[in-house]
């Protein structure tokens, strides 16, 4: 490793802070990380701000305002490696639900003086504006995966972040499938792993927090659910969650409108 500690910056765009909290939540690991890297810019956690350029930039949140667009371009310029963390940064987040509605109407309803609001009509992922080196999925992200990605980049190796279905993790753990054994609708077969099959491990169907997996066949899953009594409206809502604007989920929910 270099004598100079790699400089890391953490940025926030439109988001709930949950993913940054996952980083703070990794307290023990963070202490170890703090010894190896220099967290130079992390306004959420520290007042200390070392100027860029940075070796790694972690970006949370989606782009929702013209100002965000300017800012993400500046961020890209000051980071050698740019990693997006979470569903907002990677797919537009839950706030991307507005992409199906009229934002002007929302601002009229919500704000007393809507003329002061400057906003884009859609919430979009970081990758729509700048090149992203690695997209870490999840709402929120899994802290162990975040550490894995940081460590992998520091050691110049490929991160062990698989892109297959949640079902594989279910089976590795020895879970009994909730779809087959209970008839509970589950998005696991089309969802990207990362959570360790959290919901199915507690007898719940998967909500799709990590977005579509690498070869998601959403229409086949929908067809099966419809055969088993789901309505088109239910399917539309099922795919319109935290990753509503991720392409595979967006197309699927649109097809049930």
């Amino acid at each position, binding site marked *: *490793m270099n004598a100079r500690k790699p400089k890391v910056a953490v940025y926030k765009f439109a988001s709930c802070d949950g993913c940054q909290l996952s980083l703070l939540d990794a307290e023990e*690991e963070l202490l*170890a*990380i703090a*010894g*190896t890297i220099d967290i130079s810019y992390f306004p959420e956690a520290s007042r200390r701000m070392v100027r860029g350029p940075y070796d790694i930039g972690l970006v949370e949140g989606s782009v929702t305002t013209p100002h965000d667009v300017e800012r993400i371009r500046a961020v890209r310029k000051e980071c050698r490696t740019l990693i997006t963390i979470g569903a907002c940064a990677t797919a537009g987040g839950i706030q991307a639900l507005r992409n199906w509605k009229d934002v002007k109407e929302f601002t009229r309803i919500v704000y007393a003086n809507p003329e002061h609001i400057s906003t884009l009509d859609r919430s979009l992922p970081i990758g729509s504006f700048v090149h992203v080196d690695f997209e870490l999925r999840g709402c929120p992200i899994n802290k162990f995966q975040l*550490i*894995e990605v940081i*460590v*992998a980049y*520091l*050691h110049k*190796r490929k991160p*062990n972040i*698989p*892109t*297959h*279905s949640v*079902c*594989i993790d279910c*089976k*590795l*753990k*020895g*879970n*009994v*499938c909730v*779809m*087959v*054994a*209970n*008839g509970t609708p*589950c998005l*696991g*077969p*089309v969802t990207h792993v990362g959570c360790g099959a959290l919901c199915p491990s507690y*007898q719940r169907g998967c909500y799709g927090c990590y977005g579509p*997996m*690498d*070869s*998601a*066949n959403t229409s*086949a*899953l929908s*067809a*099966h659910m419809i055969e088993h009594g789901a309505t088109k409206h239910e399917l539309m809502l099922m795919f319109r969650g935290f990753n509503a604007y991720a392409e595979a989920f967006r197309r699927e929910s649109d097809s049930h409108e």
Partner: protein
Amino acid sequence: MFIIQRRDFDILISALKQRGYTVVGPAVRDNAIVYDEVNSASDFPVGWTDEQEKATYRLKRRADEALFGYSVGPQSWKRFLFPSHVKLLSVVKKGKTMEIQSDASNEKPPQYAFIGVRSCELNAIVIQDKVFMNEQFSDPTYVLRRHNAFIVAVNCTQSGGTCFCVSMNTGPRVKGKFDLALTEVVGNGVHHFVAEVGSDKGAEVMKEVPHKNADASGAGVAEKLVDATAQHMGRTMNTDGIKELLFNNIDSAHWDDVARRCLMCANCTMVCPTCFCSTVEDATDLSGDYAERWRRWDSCFTMDFGKVTGGNFRPSSKARYRQWMTHKLASWINQFGASGCVGCGRCITWCPVGIDITAEAEALRKNSVRIEAEHSTGV
């Protein structure tokens, strides 16, 4: 043949435990019958059965108190002999050199006694033996677990809705390779097990379990139960020329049809008792002075599986489903001298959208016959 009374069944379990075995048997968990550590017959699925169809599994109450009145569940013994995650080694950097440490859990894995191994499952274990302990290659993590395992097989006295062991010639009667084999006889005021000893180890254990010799009628009852099971298979698979069928239909339009329905979720390969693919992951810690190498189950259905330098040799869903079925039913025969399918039906029951390997094979055959007919009549 011997007869062990139900009330003496716990003595079998304690005899195995006393010999140092970790005893694994069927147990009800999360609405299914899984394989778990058991301490006594009360841990067993007493009076439970299952109803299985494609993409459906439901537990149901039986009218009796049978211990083995169910068909195979979501798990197989694979998870004990070939665990889903195994730490292979760790590496510690020591100055300019490094030290490789093997993992203790691999040198001294638990010594397992499996109670309730069905005929298809025993056949699946024999198939995995060919994969993990052949003349050319032997996998130490498998070999140790397998050599020390004690197998109490159970003849099936009912067939599941997705079973087709008769077609695959793998059941329902267990043949060889067990230490003890039981047939449960329950009803009309009796509840006992007709037992067969298959090894010296089995004979030793039998000495400690109260039993009497089975007379011809006692053994006959058990035989009849197993014969009846064979008559009631939930599925059949036509295996005539199956190897040629698959090899000659690489370009069949039917693969596109399956690919439209298949989720690429890999559940079928995870639940299959013969599927043996794994991947190896290396991970370093922050300091870079310590690394671990882990092996975990993988599947030919994942996108990563076919990724090599320069590209992916199986990027389409169609190619991945075709690979699975062609390996299972055809190239496996060339590779290991037997089919990779033992007809347990798990891939049918546990496929979330109910893709049925017997139906797919049949559809491929129909398609193939139709195309041949068109060719011969010059259409």
